[in-house]
């Protein structure tokens, strides 16, 4: 394998899915790439001045403007007659919530930009607060479980559907546990003459609280349980679904994570676990995940 475009020595936690995701994306994109990132763990851990882990040009401006900044970068590449890949890599907080206006503008203007969201399902950089991506029942520091609470009361926002509603020509979900699939999707997205969106399931060891070494295992269980179907849309049509041979029960996925431990302590939470299983079953049926 060639030298990675994300150098070692960054400050991310051991067992974090984010640097692995970046390396896979950059492997596929190659050196002729400019990366734009919103404020996140990514920025803080990879660019402590005067050091930088980035071996491609990289720019961070603010939390909520990566898509607008990337738009400016992209028009200037075109103006100069360059065919540089412009890739946004950002977390779910900036993608689902605070950057929504800017993302919507970029999608709608049709820039040739690949947006990769590494989705760890909460504001991890600030200490595990709920985001629009936080799943049903997950404990976060702003949706804590308690005597009157079973964690986050609402299901996760459907960001790929929002991208599809903008008629983004290539939309996909991916997982850090499926590197071949992720790299293929990145390569495909970069061929699209317009915006593309890939949402990558990226477990956070401190936010989800799991044992070191389980990061890939958890990401795989999310897919195998049906909670994180691997999908691919071209021009609004579902063209690719990663089949699951033998679906796992969601409990196998939930029980390994501290953010769901309240669901196994309280008797009344059996119903919550049932509701989460129903979400997975609905995905299995909707996307025909099992042959």
């Amino acid at each position, binding site marked *: 394998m060639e030298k990675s475009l994300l150098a070692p020595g960054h400050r991310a936690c051991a067992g974090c899915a984010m640097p692995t995701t970046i390396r896979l994306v950059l492997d596929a994109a190659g050196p002729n790439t400019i990366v734009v990132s919103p404020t996140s763990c990514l920025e803080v851990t990879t660019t*402590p001045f005067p050091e930088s882990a980035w071996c491609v040009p*990289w*720019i*961070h*401006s603010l939390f909520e403007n990566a*898509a607008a*900044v990337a738009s400016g*970068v992209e028009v200037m590449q075109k103006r100069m007659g360059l065919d540089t890949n412009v890739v946004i890599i950002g977390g779910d907080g900036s993608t689902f919530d605070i950057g929504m206006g800017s993302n919507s503008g970029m999608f709608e*203007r049709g820039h040739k930009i690949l947006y990769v969201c590494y989705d760890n399902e909460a504001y991890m950089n600030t200490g595990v607060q709920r985001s629009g991506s936080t799943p049903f029942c997950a404990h976060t520091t702003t949706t804590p479980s308690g005597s009157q609470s079973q964690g986050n009361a609402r299901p996760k926002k459907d960001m790929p559907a929002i991208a599809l509603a903008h008629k983004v020509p290539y939309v996909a979900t991916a997982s850090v546990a499926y590197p071949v699939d992720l790299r293929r999707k990145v390569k495909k997205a970069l061929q699209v003459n317009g915006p593309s969106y890939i949402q990558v399931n990226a477990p956070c060891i401190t936010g989800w609280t799991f044992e070191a070494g389980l990061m890939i295992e958890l990401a795989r269980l999310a897919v195998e349980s049906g909670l994180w179907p691997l999908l691919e849309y071209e021009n609004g049509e579902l063209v690719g679904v990663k089949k699951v041979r033998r679906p796992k029960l969601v409990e196998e996925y939930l029980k390994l994570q501290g953010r769901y431990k309240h669901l196994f302590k309280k008797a009344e939470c059996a119903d919550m676990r049932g509701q989460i299983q129903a979400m997975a079953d609905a995905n299995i049926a909707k996307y025909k995940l099992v042959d």
Partner: protein
Amino acid sequence: MSEKTANMKVVEGSYAVAHAVMCCRPDVISAYPITPQTHIVENLSQMVADGELDSEFLTVDSEFSALSVLVGSSAAGARSYSSTTSQGLALMYEVLYNVSGMRLPIVMNVANRALGAPLNIWNDQQDAIGARDVGWLQIYVEDVQEAVDATLQAYKIAEDAEIRTPIMVCMDGFVLTHVYEPVELLDKEKAREFLPAYQPANILDPAKPKTFGAFADPSTYTEFRYQQFEAQLKALDKIEKVAREFEETFGRYYGGLIDSYQAEDAEIVIVTLGSVIGTIKDAIDAMRSEGKKVGLLKVRSYRPFPVQALRKALKDASVIAVIEKDVSIGSEAGLVTDLKAAFYNSNIRIPIIGFTAGLGGRDITVKDIRKIVDKAETARKGIEFEFEFLNLRTEIL
């Protein structure tokens, strides 16, 4: 027709500024509609549509995104332009610090307007004065011609290798953006000679990968700010130098950092910024004919604040009255506070009184200027008040 007036046309202020922007040849323009700035970017859009201007024009979802687009384009090597006002400038606030912190030489016209609440679309300068600390240079212009000329000068100052700092060219909304007056439009070729192509020192380039917008901890953050501070102090000379170079090429000069009118022997000096200067000059002419030694000092560069130039220009005054269209609620107002601070450690001991006036578009008349001068006369004998709202309608309070 002489060569000097060959390009003289009666046009709307916004068109004149858009024409000046065209002569600056920006690669990327991004803006969002807001009154009274909109005519500037409408004109620019039309110029692009008609092939008169070869720029990428991005219509965006907000002013916040407009300036964010320019962060990306400027970092990619583009000469970049926007214009805004009031709420739009407020929405850009976070990006303003980012642009200056990354040393991106973006130029923006601010069509000064009041901020809500209550909603008000008319002119004052609370928007830009409130943004005095964001690290941008700020030039305030007196009339449309100066707005045109300052816009071209702005790129030359901002893009200078020693400065590399964004600039707001502040022009009073409606008063200057919507007025039709005779203006000498810039000659494209002369503008090209005056302002060559942008030569950025660092850009986003895969051949030479660089990291922009890194994370700085307490051991390095202060030095980033210090370098910005130093660049603004260097801009004191640069603004003056560019104004003189402009004079050589185009034959017009408005002062670099400051300008004055009837100030040399003046006992009472009015200090201000922006379009109210025209009214003040009329008032001064009338009062001079009555034998009153009144003069004007115009602050053209508010950031950097020209402390030495102001000390030198005002040292012989007997009393100073500052009039400005902004207020620092809970204190006084921007210009008067800065002026007092500029004098405190000098030997100059002149009474200074401040007035906030013209908020939310209320007219400032010759009569008002006379009233200020009367109050200044009184202040010579002893200050009764330091700061007041001029023409406050006490009957509706």
